């Protein structure tokens, strides 16, 4: 039908009346081209050195786009970002960096999936550690192994291998880390004191957590002792963290079978169920996702929840909380803890110079001691948080230097994180197909938190069946 229509349109030039409408129709479709976003990867001016291991030639003219620039609401961070670009441009005056900001979370899994499918990611794009497989499934990232060397990223040897290796698949490197975290137990010190608990000794076992939660909930005034997510993939994410803390696993070593339908998995759900229904220490509102518990603890309505240290910065900056409020302990159980973080990958199809420029920028902004995000003196001057335990992925000499600078510029009572710092728990990487599995496990979490008569065995076996199906389908 379409071809017939088009054949007619050629003859139509004689029929003036209809021609007008047709012309309108066709120009409108043709002018889609002007707003097309398909060919904007600007493969231009790639006349720099063809040797991938050579650093970027400062004369090379390159433009790169990059996401997760701080939004206008985070004024100080945005200022630092712009400052850093200025400094960076002193060395590389011909690199133009187009930042794209995201007011909410930089990476929301469904939006990220859609972005990959649409190949609309910027040249240098932000991802969670667990996203690599999905990116590769969509053929979305360049292999940058040859570009990342001691010359281009001098601190490389001083970065924890675990943190770099999440971006490696079959020996090829696809990204560079910006931050890492391990999950711990965040507490509200104010409520701990009010409830007669010692804020310097966060509960170390789940039994202790339960007792403490009950005492805090007994304060009344709508205060809950312990909070947990059960929506937006966050429930499953925390299920995995709790499971790791108990020494359990989510997916077995082969990566093909679910491994959470065991005594540990049962304990995870059972203790949540008991805290919610027997002790009534978890509040009535459930189906929470990232952001909700932060709001609660920041307004002194929540005693404890599992969190990464950088949540503190979020709560202070965006929710108006105070650093003194928060303390941090290791994850209860302490057999292992979920470790995760973010890295930047480089879009498939970028020119060698774009790749080099991207790596140069990432190195400067995120991976250099004393520069960019690790310029603690500046961070302090801008009244941003200094002294959080993480991101902290350096080793050896770099770590010594960085730790010293952190301590010297600390803007918060660092001793409140002593329990967390002194009891490092071995980090455990997220399972394959992490977001899919988390999504499925959300249901198990919401099951025990919203249904007093939830059948834990059934919740686990249903989730197991679904996870196995997802894993088999890769």
């Amino acid at each position, binding site marked *: 039908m379409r071809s017939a229509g088009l054949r007619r349109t050629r003859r139509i030039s004689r*029929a003036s009346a209809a021609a007008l409408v047709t012309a309108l*129709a066709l120009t409108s479709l043709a002018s889609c081209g002007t707003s097309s976003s398909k060919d904007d990867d600007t493969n231009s001016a790639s006349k720099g050195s063809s040797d991938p291991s050579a650093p970027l030639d400062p004369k090379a003219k390159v433009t790169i786009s990059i996401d997760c620039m701080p939004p206008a609401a985070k004024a100080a961070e945005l200022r630092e970002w712009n400052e850093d670009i200025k400094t960076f441009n002193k060395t590389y005056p011909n690199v133009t960096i187009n930042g794209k900001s995201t007011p909410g979370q930089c990476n929301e899994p469904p939006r990220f999936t859609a972005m*990959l499918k649409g190949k609309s990611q910027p040249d240098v794009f932000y991802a969670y550690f667990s996203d690599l497989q999905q990116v590769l*499934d969509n053929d979305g990232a360049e292999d940058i192994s040859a570009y990342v060397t001691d010359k281009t990223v001098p601190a490389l040897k001083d970065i924890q291998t675990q943190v770099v290796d999440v971006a490696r698949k079959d020996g090829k490197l696809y990204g560079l880390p910006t931050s890492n975290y391990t999950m711990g137990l965040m507490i509200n010190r104010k409520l701990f004191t009010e409830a007669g608990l010692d804020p310097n000794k966060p509960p170390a076992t789940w039994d202790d957590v339960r007792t403490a939660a009950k005492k805090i909930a007994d304060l009344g005034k709508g205060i809950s002792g312990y909070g947990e997510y059960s929506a937006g993939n966050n429930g499953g994410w925390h299920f995995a963290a709790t499971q790791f803390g108990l020494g359990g696993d989510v997916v077995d070593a082969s990566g093909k079978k679910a491994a959470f339908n065991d005594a540990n998995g049962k304990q995870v759900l059972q203790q949540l169920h008991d805290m919610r229904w027997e002790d009534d220490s978890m509040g009535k509102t459930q189906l929470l*996702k990232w952001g909700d518990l932060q709001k609660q603890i920041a307004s002194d309505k929540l005693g404890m929840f599992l969190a990464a240290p950088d949540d503190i910065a979020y709560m202070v900056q965006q929710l108006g909380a105070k650093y003194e409020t928060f303390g941090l302990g290791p994850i209860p159980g302490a057999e292992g803890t979920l470790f995760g973080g973010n890295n930047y990958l480089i879009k498939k199809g970028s020119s060698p110079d774009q790749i080099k420029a991207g790596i140069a920028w990432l190195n400067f902004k995120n991976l250099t001691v004393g520069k960019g995000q690790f310029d603690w003196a500046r961070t302090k001057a801008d009244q941003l948080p200094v002294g959080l335990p993480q991101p902290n992925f350096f080793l050896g000499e770099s770590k010594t230097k960085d730790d010293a600078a952190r301590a010297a510029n600390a803007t918060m009572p660092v001793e409140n994180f002593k329990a967390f710092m002194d009891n490092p728990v071995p980090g455990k990487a997220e399972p394959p197909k992490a977001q899919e599995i988390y999504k499925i496990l*959300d*249901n198990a979490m*919401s099951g025990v938190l919203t249904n007093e008569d939830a059948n834990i065995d059934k919740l686990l076996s249903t989730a197991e069946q679904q996870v196995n*199906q997802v894993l088999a*389908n890769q």
Partner: protein
Amino acid sequence: MSAPTLSSRKATTPGPGHSRPARRDSAREDFLRAVRRNISAHGFLIGAVLCFSLFSWYPMVREFILAFQKTEDGKTTWAGWSNLTYVFNDPAFWQAWRNTLLFTVLALLLGFVVPFVVAVVLNEFRHGQGYLRLLVYLPVMLPPVASVLLFKYFYDPGYGLFNRILDVFHLPAQQWLQDTDTAMLSVVIAATWMNMGGATLIYLAALQGIPGELYEAAELDGAGLLRKVWHVTIPQTRLILSLLLLMQVIATMQVFTEPFLLTNGAGPEGSTTTVVYLIYQYAFNFNNYGSAAALGLVLLVVLAGFSAVYVRLSRSSED
């Protein structure tokens, strides 16, 4: 003076070609005129047809193709029936159907009956009808995100307004969206509040078309209020009612925004996971477009079957 003008005049005058003596010539001319008329007619059509082809008809075809394909490491291959088996083996599949049916039934009970009753009552008022219509239609004009988040606050089991109201009447507090038993109902209540305005106005218009004599006749037969509604109001608005029913079913089967915003889609223990949400989840959480298309196909078949049966039934009852 342009060619199509002539042709369209010709086409609309009776007995085309009557002024020409030679028959072969006139046949040729008729043909040319028809061509010219069609060029101009299709010229008017082409914008819409192109858009339909690209964004409606082609995706429909593509749905079928996708359902039998899978994509791995950037390569697309034929998948046979594996997407459909995946869908049918997913425990969430049957749950999603149960939820969708529950939603449809509840949405019909509330979203279909409430606006009708409201319209019947409003239609009796001799005062303030404009104000009441305005009120009922107000939520339709709100951005859905505003209405839905409002209800989320009202439903909160801690500080929510609804539990406060129940408390005033000494009724037990509810968990609303947080309980597997009431989650879907809560979603439907919010959806009804948001959308009933349109339906109410339609009913009002239909009610005003009912001849008053019919009521008078019924009264002469001694009919009471309910019998008048049953024997006059409902039969007289039957066509509107039945069409609305069909549209409501199709619309409720594809509900997405309300559960997505109220309960993040899944809800407690997956109790607000609808078929459409499951499609979304397959595609955009699991990156599994094949299974998403396969499930879409299943829903399509069910809806097509429903429409066919429904149209047949309502046609036979009309005769």
